């Protein structure tokens, strides 16, 4: 079975038995209130946390059966916030994304250079490739870190709140980029806190209190009843051009 699939994940932290799958060519948005276990589930599926029960499967094989470099070539993970190397050049940061292909001492070949160029290009980060990461704004930095994740040319991309720090223009650009990557066969799982961004995904999974509350196409899942359950009674949903739009009733 193709895809990255978590089955019956219990623990660590809040997760109380969650199953979730991402298929190639599909963008899944993971939605839920703070503390619902979204980031934890993402880290479990990236192979960074070991669940107490349940397992993660990549293309039908247990994730743990993959070597760490092989896993790194197939899955790229971008955490939310976290440390970043202020004193590295943007280009060097993105080149670190090739480590799963190079190992510790491999020399960069043509393929590596091309992947880095591509990642810089699609994220719009090539303009500041020669600058230190620490000299960029939060939004520019976020695009560089995304380019780092893309540089591995992974089959699956796991992103934790990738739109944080981005202004509206680049949020739009990023979401368009996701749709583009998905069209080329990449599988994307992104934790998002904004239901309106999640509405752009192919599928939405909603987590609350460590359990999967709902899953399916955005227009089916993002109902007023569900969102009020998640975020309180002030949430309203309108439909524009066939898509749900979420707003707060002031």
């Amino acid at each position, binding site marked *: 079975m193709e895809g990255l699939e978590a089955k019956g994940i219990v623990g660590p932290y809040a997760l109380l038995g969650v199953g979730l799958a991402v298929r190639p060519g599909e963008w899944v948005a993971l939605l839920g209130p703070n503390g619902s276990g979204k980031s934890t589930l993402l880290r479990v599926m990236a192979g960074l946390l070991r669940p107490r029960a349940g397992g993660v499967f990549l293309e039908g094989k247990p994730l743990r059966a993959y070597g760490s470099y092989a896993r790194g070539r197939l899955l790229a993970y971008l*955490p939310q916030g*976290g440390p*970043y190397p202020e004193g590295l050049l943007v280009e060097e940061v993105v080149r*670190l994304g090739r480590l799963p292909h190079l190992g510790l*001492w491999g020399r960069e070949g043509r393929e590596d250079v091309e992947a880095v160029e591509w990642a810089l290009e699609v994220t719009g980060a090539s303009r500041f490739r020669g600058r230190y990461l620490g000299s960029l704004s939060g939004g520019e930095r976020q695009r560089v870190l995304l380019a780092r994740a893309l540089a591995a040319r992974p089959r699956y991309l796991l992103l934790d709140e990738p739109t944080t720090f981005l202004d509206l223009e680049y949020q739009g650009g990023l979401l368009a980029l996701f749709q583009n990557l998905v069209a080329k066969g990449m599988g994307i799982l992104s934790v998002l806190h904004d239901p309106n961004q999640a509405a752009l995904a192919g599928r939405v999974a909603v987590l609350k209190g460590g359990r999967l509350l709902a899953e399916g196409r955005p227009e089916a899942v993002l109902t007023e009843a569900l969102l009020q359950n998640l975020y309180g009674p002030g949430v309203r949903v309108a439909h524009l051009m066939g898509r749900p739009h979420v707003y707060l009733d002031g």
Partner: protein
Amino acid sequence: MTQALPLALKRSLVFLWLVFLLLLALVLGVALGAVSLPVGEVVSALLGLKENPIVTEMRLPRVLGGMLVGAALGVAGASFQGLFRNPLADPYLMGSAAGAAFAVTLLAAFLGGLSPAFAQHAVFQSLPLSATLFGFFGALLATLVTLVLAGGAARTGELVLAGVVVGSVLTGATTYLMLQDADRVRAVFAYTLGNLAFLGWPGVKALLLFFLVAFPPLLLLGRVLNALQLGEDVAKSLGLPLEGLKLLLLLAASLLVAAAVAQAGIIGFVGLITPHLLRRFLGEDYRLLLPASALGGAALLALADLLARTLTRPAELPVGVVTTLLGGPFFLYLMWRRRGRA
């Protein structure tokens, strides 16, 4: 690409400048001292054209040994800072230098009494290898205790505090061992304060050996140190076998600290200041920062020793006093600047 060339040029110039500084420190270090030698004589003796026992038997081992100690401390400092992702991590501040000093003193105390060993520096002359290996375990243990007390390396305040506590306790224990023979306290004290006066050719050879063992792996792991700056989760997700690599980095850096301490006692702040100064010019690419810290640490300590030997001529200061007097205020400046940014 238009920006890449000037940057590469700028970086090459930094390395050229470091090499120049190192050669300058070598010539001046050999020429100046209780008796000054003319530069021409120094250069011809260094090139082997003319024999000069003051140069070859006394000053050269001290200058070269001092450079190796400085290089070891500079590289260890840069490695600790990269490994713990903390710009204030340093062999001196993290207690690992004090751990090495305690272990070396313990070894000296057990080997047929403390005082004769220190009086003639016999331990360091005849057993430099075992002294370093013993110091290695001391450095490692002290670093681990510091990390446990600080609950990891993420919080600078806790790390520095834990390092100071571990360092103080170990320094107290070292002093206690040394005070067992009060007559020799002066000589012993000069060692703990950080002193290059004990260096002879055997010490230089030991330093060179350990440097050649520990430096290449660190240099080869420069890319890993770079990746670690993205956080451990990301470094792991890139496929790096992080647990083993971190241990290797810690072992290699501790070996450098131990080699330096076994030969020269505790010399503070070289490991902190050297990478800091170089970051301003080279950024934080550890593939550049590590070799630059080796050159820079070597030059810095050789120049500091020059001050130590000439400031109170014909008497000498322990070089550790000079580095601490200059490094302490610099450290405060760094803390102050970080607070300003936070």
